[in-house]
């Protein structure tokens, strides 16, 4: 249903975040909220992050910035100026939500540095929901610690078990701690808006990115006192019973994951793979003749594993990721390609669902392709709504809504308030 404003249509969000929080405002905007990105007059520091459209550094062309600030309008405001601070409080009077990052070292000062603490905002608008995203929470022993993604992932326990046993722990090369934390922020904000429906009162929502990352360990830390398992890096293999098994395999143009795991859910997939190999004349007799119904990865010897894996490995090298994935879908193999954006943008499934969205960005002379709705709703209304704002793009519109006259706006701009 195009044209439906979305489940959060009618809510207004002031997004004062730095990079770790961009996704939170974007998701609220995708859901229909009027999200206004508030930037310092010189622009958000993340506008200087490469890569850039066209290659050359340009505040309007940082791809990381463009990618996660869709569905937002944008204004500039100098919070260090007394009049800027007053304007911000007036904006708070029109808003339902303020989000910010209290993130030492992120390049944007927290609102409290401008005298805009929770008590002040709450007094200005008692219905306001105020969300703070920080590496370790608002208070506590590490509250002043500097921490970008790598440190939050490390301190959240998700790095230690990621990687190869013979190398250091490793992180994902895009900032997953930002994703975990920003998602919990958006969720916490929606929860606080629900609470407000009952009480009329806004509240403070305090997000710890470290704690958000801890959940990505899938209860491993909670299990530690009983299991004694502190996590371990196993790399591309897994160990079970008497043997080691390969989980990631090279194929013709990349990598696929597949493992010789037994059990009723998995054995049919192994059989189907052997059939597929056989159709290409690549299934040796010892694979075809084996009694797979009795297969148990906990009892097989390494020698047997090596023989089976050498045949499977040779076969995978003759196929592309896309070919193997097609076969996995058609034959119910539990095999997955380690997709890159190249495969993802070509994926039939995503095309069939109309997942990707193209937005014209006339001022930047670009038409960019973005991931689309994070979920499909029967009433529609979840989608990237507009390209990321240019610096101060909506100053005129937003301040006019606030009742600032055109002449006053010019004067404010001249005096460095905007």
């Amino acid at each position, binding site marked *: 249903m195009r044209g439906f404003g979305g*489940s*959060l249509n009618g809510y207004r969000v002031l997004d004062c975040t730095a990079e770790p929080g961009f996704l939170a405002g974007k*998701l609220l905007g995708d859901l229909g909220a009027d999200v206004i990105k508030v930037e310092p007059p010189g622009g958000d520091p993340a506008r200087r992050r490469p890569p850039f459209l066209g290659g050359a550094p340009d505040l309007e062309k940082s791809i990381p910035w463009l*990618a996660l600030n*869709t569905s937002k309008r944008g204004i500039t405001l100098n919070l260090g100026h007394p009049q800027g601070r007053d304007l911000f409080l007036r904006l708070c009077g029109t808003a339902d939500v303020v989000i910010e990052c209290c993130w030492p070292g992120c390049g944007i000062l927290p609102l409290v540095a401008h005298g805009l603490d929770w008590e002040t905002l709450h007094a200005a608008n008692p219905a306001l929901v105020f969300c703070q995203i920080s590496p370790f929470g608002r208070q506590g022993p*590490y509250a002043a610690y500097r921490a*970008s993604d*790598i*440190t939050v992932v*490390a301190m959240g326990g*998700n790095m230690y*078990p990621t990687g*190869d046993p013979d190398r250091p*722990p*490793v*992180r*994902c*090369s*895009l900032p*997953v701690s930002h994703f975990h934390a920003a*998602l*919990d922020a958006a*969720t916490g904000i*929606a929860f606080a*808006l629900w*609470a407000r*429906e009952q009480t009329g*009162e806004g*509240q*403070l929502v*305090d997000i710890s990115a470290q*704690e958000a990352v*801890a*959940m*990505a360990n899938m*209860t491993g*830390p909670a*299990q*530690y006192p*009983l299991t004694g*398992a502190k996590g371990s890096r196993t*790399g591309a293999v897994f160990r079970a019973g008497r043997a080691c098994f390969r989980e*990631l395999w090279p194929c013709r143009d990349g*990598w696929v*994951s597949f493992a010789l795991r037994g059990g009723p*859910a998995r054995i049919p997939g192994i059989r189907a793979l052997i059939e597929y190999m056989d159709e290409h004349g690549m299934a040796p007799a010892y694979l075809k003749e084996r009694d797979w119904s009795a297969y148990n990865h906990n009892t097989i010897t390494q020698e047997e594993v090596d023989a089976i894996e050498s045949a499977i490995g040779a076969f995978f090298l003759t196929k592309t990721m896309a070919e193997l994935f097609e076969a996995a*879908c058609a034959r*119910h193999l*539990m*095999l*997955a390609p380690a*997709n890159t*954006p190249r495969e993802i943008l070509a994926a*039939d*499934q995503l095309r*069939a669902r109309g997942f990707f969205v193209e937005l014209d960005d006339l001022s930047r002379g670009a038409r*960019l392709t*973005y991931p689309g709705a*994070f979920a*499909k709703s029967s009433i529609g209304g979840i989608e990237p709504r507009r390209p990321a704002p240019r610096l101060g793009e909506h100053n005129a519109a937003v301040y006019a809504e606030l009742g600032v006259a055109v002449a006053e706006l010019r004067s404010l701009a001249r005096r460095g308030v905007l």
Partner: protein
Amino acid sequence: MAGLFAGLKILEFGGGAAGPLGCRYFADHGATVVRVESRRRPDFLRLLRYTPDTKGGLDGSLMFAAMNCNKLSVALDLSHPRGPDLARRLAMWADVVAENFAPGTMAKWNLDYESLRLEKPDLIMVSTCLNGQTGPHRSYPGFGGQGSAIAGFNHLTGWPDREPLGPYGTITDSLAPRFLALAVAAALLHRCRTGAGQYIDLSQVEAGLVCLSEAIVTYSATGEVLGRMGNRSRHAAPHGAFPCAPECGDDDRWVVIAVHDDRDWDRFCEAIGNPPWCRDERFAHAQGRLAHQEEIEARIAEWTRDRTAHSVMEQLQAAGVEAGVVQNFRDLTEDPALAARGHFRAVDHPVLGSHLVEANAIRFSSSSEEIRSPAPLLGEHTEYVFRELLGMPAVEYAALHAEGVFF
């Protein structure tokens, strides 16, 4: 204190992490979450490390227990002729139905949204599976490990000269529950204002891809495929994990250090006592440090190797330099920041005894998350839910029980 979702009723079908962890967000804030389960086809998390001698049988899984506290469980065999109708009565009771079966499964029992909404137009229902409810690959059988690979997280994680690994814990399994909670909360707000329900089709791969927008936009705009870079950064150096001295009898210890700009570098050099190598002209600016990372990393490793990860973190942070211990799961249970937030809570489970569960990352100033009860035994609340919550007469319950549908 009543939780902020006190009075909200959620019915949960399915298993694993993606659906159930999403419903936990509501359960921890007072919602009544009823899981529909069956011994005929138990949640695979109840079968983890399950053997015929597992203490407590299907109720002895620690991972299941750690994920599903604060919920009720009814045992209901959906393959029994009376099963789907009873599930339907539960759905009529609920505000929200959440399920993560393979696409089409709920329709088989007439429990799909199209069917349920005829009777309950304001129902909110969410289905989550790897690839979504429509499209040629909707029935692809996969768990989070597959979702993480398909969405591109694996390609971005690991060493450039080695296999793509994926972040530990199959990341789509921890992202999808948060998307689920957000989408359902937004739907509740919409229902509150308009009275309208909705159906939400949450593909775990698509939701993951929204997070990876940077990689998708970069490729579509420039043709560049962002790859895995170990621990390095495109614009800052040094940026990595460095070996440390053994601590607590454990020799697999590491500290991360990140230097983002030239001022950070000056502070870092100062903090480690300005050894002569630090003052090498080649390292004074970001470009030079990026070009000579290997050399710098080797030097830093020499310095960290004899120090504990905690002492390096404290020393560098005191000097305003970003550093953090690469904490293992035991470290997390002793972490003072997590302790200050009450991240770990002990709960008494009838089979497992006292064990820990974890709170999510959200704290509210006017209401608190609360662990009220351990994860349910399979079917523990069948009678309570049908008799007390649905008001089923004792005679009817007894008759159904005798027919074996509550299995």
